[in-house]
């Protein structure tokens, strides 16, 4: 019991039993040892000579970036438009594919448990792999360009939209569905008039949210050759033109902030 008696015979309150206390100590010890072990591995694989002059390197980097080459911004409008297209078209294709997958994955709308597990597998596979990795694969398959970026964003979006949407479908009210099926409606009609109106606002909100994340992700897809402003970023870094890099960073920063603001406004209006 947490209450023990002191030497004077007075009860003393304690938060944990002795066993729980010891278990906690052991857990902390194990955790800290694991952390230190990991830290040692990293430290062994690090060239500390390079780390020592990190401050100097950092200030050097900033001084090279500092007067940004503003006229470079004129070159960036087309890549920026490409980036927006990658994000938007990718999101569109992604939500189109995620929509049926979510209905197959939700417990209350799936035709068969076996189909459900396949749909869940698709969602997990798409969610676990970053869009940059998808882009890397697609660039070797489809060749460098905007198309690889669009498909990479779409493939990554399936999992995210699918997961949130199927959770929304599982949380719907069963009463409208019952009412519709009581009229003798077919399976598709029940979906259309009972389920769909209930999840439509959530679906729109999730899509806009994903679009905002996709804008952020599509800015770097060019690093592996999948089009957009990342191509310019890669070229500028490779040619050590840090004053151009800072212009690109600023542009990405502003775009991401604006898209975040738009998405927050739209979601606020819907929900």
């Amino acid at each position: 019991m947490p209450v023990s008696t002191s030497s004077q015979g007075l009860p003393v309150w304690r938060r944990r039993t002795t066993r729980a206390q010891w278990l906690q100590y052991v857990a902390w010890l194990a955790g800290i040892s694991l952390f230190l072990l990991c830290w040692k591995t990293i430290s062994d694989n690090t060239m500390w000579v390079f780390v020592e002059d990190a401050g100097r390197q950092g200030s050097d980097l900033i001084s090279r970036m500092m007067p940004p080459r503003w006229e470079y911004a004129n070159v960036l409008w087309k890549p920026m438009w490409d980036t927006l297209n990658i994000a938007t078209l990718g999101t569109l294709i992604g939500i189109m594919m995620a929509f049926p997958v979510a209905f197959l994955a939700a417990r209350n709308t799936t035709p068969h448990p076996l189909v459900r597990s396949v749909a869940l597998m698709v969602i997990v596979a798409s969610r676990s792999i970053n869009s940059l990795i998808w882009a890397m694969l697609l660039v070797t398959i489809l060749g460098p360009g905007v198309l690889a970026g669009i498909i990479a964003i779409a493939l990554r979006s399936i999992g995210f939209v699918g997961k949130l949407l199927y959770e929304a479908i599982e949380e719907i009210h069963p009463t409208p569905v019952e009412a519709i099926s009581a009229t003798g409606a077919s399976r598709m009609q029940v979906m259309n008039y009972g389920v769909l109106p209930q999840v439509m606002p959530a679906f729109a909100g999730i899509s806009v949210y994903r679009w905002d994340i996709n804008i952020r992700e599509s800015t770097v897809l060019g690093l592996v050759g999948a089009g957009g402003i990342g191509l310019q970023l890669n070229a500028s870094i490779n040619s050590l033109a840090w004053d151009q890099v800072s212009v690109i960073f600023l542009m990405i920063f502003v775009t991401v902030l604006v898209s975040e603001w738009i998405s927050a406004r739209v979601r606020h209006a819907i929900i």
Partner: protein
Amino acid sequence: MNAADSLAERRQQAAKQGQWRRLPLIQDSRLRWGIVIATVVYLILALSTVDVNWARVAEGAGRAVNFLGAFMQPDFVSRQKDIVDGLLESLTMTLTSTVIGVLLAIPVGLGAARNISPLPIYFVCRSIIAVSRTFQEIIIAILFVVMFGFGPLAGMITLAFATIGFMAKLLAEDIEDLDWRQVEAVRATGASWLQTINQAVQPQVMPRLIGLSVYRLDINFRESAVIGIVGAGGIGATLNTSISRYEYDTSAAILLIIIAIVLLCEYSSSHVRRWTQ
């Protein structure tokens, strides 16, 4: 009678005559058609500027088949040493960066909660969060690789930096809507600021903090698979090499391992979250 009422009235009349139509998602018809027209115009503009080299795409079809074939028979063996090294590096980076990131995120999160911190500190902490959240991990990784050199240290610092923004934002939001009566009760006993935080705030946010840390561990692993592309260590470097060598069977093996570990993380994190709440 205003416009919305008359619209509802008309709809009811129509429904009685058997002309029922479902309610549209967007009530205002002008806004609805405006959005449709804007979407069509945008799609025409966007699709006309996307230039695709179809000859190259057709050429890649064979590679796509190869790749799908590789997924059927992934090759775990021939690059086993590289894969194991990369994975271990990724896992160590994940763990250390999450621990350091969460530890650093706690003070930032406390500072970014409007109800317990003064205005100047609030602004400083909020701007730290904004900078850390806006940039992709990979962009931060590029900068840190330049500063700290190639290897897992740069990756670890990148992930820790990204963790700060994520954790601090969610922690601050959690603190901002905690139950204020408990804080008042502890304050009424004459507790100092630190004691108030420890006795009134910490017990309320702890379950969520643990849940979020486990969730972030999961995210950090996924990200650690990517930042290797720019030289920040981890399994990403191995994956990048295997793809550029067209060794699709090895890359398929790496991808399958990543999926398996993410699944494992997700499964255990949902258990931990259920256990803490």
